[in-house]
């Protein structure tokens, strides 16, 4: 079982490379059970959207 510390890193790396299948599954499983990491993932997703929309409309 991966820790939040490991998972937050993989969530970020998942934005920059394709994670190996087993890691992707481990992250998914962790996220299912961990609200804190789900929030972190949402923050990362938000940042990506925000940067792609810069400088706004």
């Amino acid at each position, binding site marked *: 079982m991966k*820790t939040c510390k490991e998972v937050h890193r993989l969530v*970020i790396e998942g*934005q920059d490379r394709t994670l190996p299948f087993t890691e992707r599954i481990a992250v998914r499983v962790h996220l299912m059970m961990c*609200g804190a990491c789900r929030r972190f993932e*949402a923050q990362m*997703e938000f940042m990506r959207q925000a940067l792609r929309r810069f400088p706004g409309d």
Partner: protein
Amino acid sequence: MAENVFYDELEKLRPTLMRFAVLQLRDEQSAEDAVQDTLLAAFEGAEQFSGRAQLRTWVVSILKNKIVDRIRKRSREAPLPEVSESDDDDFDALFQADGHWQEKPSSWGNPEATLQQSRFYDVMELCMKALPENLARVFTMREILEMETEEICKELAISTSNCWVVLYRARMRLRECLQLRWFNEGVGTE
């Protein structure tokens, strides 16, 4: 579109393009040059603009190429120093010894509502400008120019694993800054 109307429409985009270019090139003069080249290329290529895409989208895509050209040139002239895993900021402090969060990440609310606010982009711009140059260059190539990680590492002649470290740091710093400058201020919930 008549030529003079097209010209006016292009000129109207200049401030937006400048903001975009300055953020990535971090230098007023080379941003101005890139924008100038872009507007000229757009004007000369007017017949290629069929009106299918939005004018702004089309011009921004030209600008992105001009920016990448400049970054390429700059990277050849002044390579980035390697960022080592142990450098300065210590994100380990966000976690307890057993790997749990010290503090649960906060909810950033409704993303769409935040992205509608122009003041949010001002704060984000400020946070991006606060990133050290060696992180910012890689990060903007990845997120604003939307290049693939392998492509960036190759352009900048840095190792792939170093690229990941840099991108990790940049994201963690931006997150920290947005939390502090925007979400803690409660401006997002007005």
